[in-house]
């Protein structure tokens, strides 16, 4: 077996065999990126936690459908996170009882007292709103390629698109987001042109 067990595919395989610790290790590995992604899409801390949690629960519930891309489950997980965030109330409903039963640290700080934070909140929500103008598939592409720096080939693989189709879609999607953000004079677009990587990553 070599050290296959250490790789992400090894951890995933062990998870499928019911080894909880392997799944725990995958959670540790990807939690923060999933959370940040959820936050970017909804602009709210509490909702982002719910979406992150629901994404991992969904990862396990739909484990039979997971596509491993470039040896990682993260692309699939991010696509699921995007779906969860798009129809937040509907998709987290399945896990609502569980989510509300999980303990949370009381947030005692008054959000309005911190001006930086409320400014940040506005920025976050503007971006989240601009992203809602995208069709689901385009949002998936933007999420994977622009925010998470996957190659177009990897994003296309997880979404079941041809690389060429993915490339032209992403070009249009980025123009859309930029237009949506420019329409709001109070914000600088945080989606400045990002170098897009093509081809397979080794």
């Amino acid at each position: 077996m070599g050290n296959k067990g250490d790789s992400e595919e090894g951890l995933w395989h062990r998870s499928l065999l019911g080894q909880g610790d392997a799944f725990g290790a995958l959670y540790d590995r990807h939690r923060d990126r999933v959370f940040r992604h959820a936050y970017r899409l909804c602009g709210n801390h509490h909702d982002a936690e719910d979406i992150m949690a629901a994404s991992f629960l969904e990862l396990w519930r739909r484990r039979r459908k997971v596509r491993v891309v470039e040896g990682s489950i993260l692309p699939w997980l991010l696509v699921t996170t995007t779906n969860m965030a798009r129809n937040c109330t509907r998709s987290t409903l399945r896990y609502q009882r569980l989510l509300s039963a999980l303990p949370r640290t009381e947030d005692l700080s008054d959000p309005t007292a911190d001006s930086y934070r409320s400014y940040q909140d506005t920025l976050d929500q503007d971006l989240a709103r601009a992203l809602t103008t995208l069709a689901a598939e385009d949002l998936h592409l933007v999420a994977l390629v622009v925010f998470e720096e996957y190659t177009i080939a990897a994003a296309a693989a997880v979404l079941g698109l041809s690389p060429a189709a993915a490339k032209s879609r992403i070009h249009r999607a980025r123009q859309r987001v930029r237009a949506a953000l420019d329409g709001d004079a109070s914000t600088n677009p945080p989606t400045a042109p990002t170098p897009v990587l093509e081809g397979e990553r080794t």
Partner: protein
Amino acid sequence: MNQFHVDDLFSDALRAELVSQVKKESPAAKRTRTRLWLGTGALAGAGLLGVGAAAAGLFVIPGGEKVTPLASPVTTTYTGTATVELGAPPEGTTGIQMELRCLTPGWFEFPDGAAASCSEEDAASDRLGWSGYTISLVPGQDSVTIKTDPEARWQLTAEYVKQERTPLGVNAKGETYGVESQESGTPDLIAVMATNGQSGYAYASDLHGGPMPSSPEDAVKNFSTPRPPREIPVFESDGETEIGVFMAAGSGGGIPSYPTRSAPPG
């Protein structure tokens, strides 16, 4: 509170919940094993490899289940509900191991009521459309019936197997190690995987540490007071060579305190 970090309390409880959900899938956790889904082609291949290797007696963790095929597998394609005849079971058969592949979408029910559902996408895919399942042999049984819609098409590979619980290992210090099960009980050293991905053993006393509840009220209190997960050492089977750490789940996240602990060695 930091906007860009997950609340630790929330995260720890979620992690414990996920780990316990996954563990429900493990053969050790389920006496009557339900189903085992494998994700992709590569993984399915690896899974089969695992079965073969396990059958050959390789990397079976002490106390785990060893599955030996006793007859050559029968593969046949059917439409609708059908019974697959397997012939007389060889001496020593304890179960029937099956792989069901759906060729059309539908709902497929195994003899003991466990079921697999198959979507359009599953049926179209070589990788998604199969599920593996092992049932215990009922005395006199020589066939399996799969129930499904009249027009649903499926393919079943079934073979008689012998499932054996391997004995727990005993190290130089006289401590038992392996997988816990109903037959063997809880070993001193329980097989776990360290956070670095290495397989090893953690002391049951570390894993299930903490005083046992003294009353039902106490148990409820223990259970509902969240205790954060903690790091415990992971050893080789000798109980001395440390190879990593394991995050023992805190309580209050859905994992109750352990009812029994094995007596300390000696």
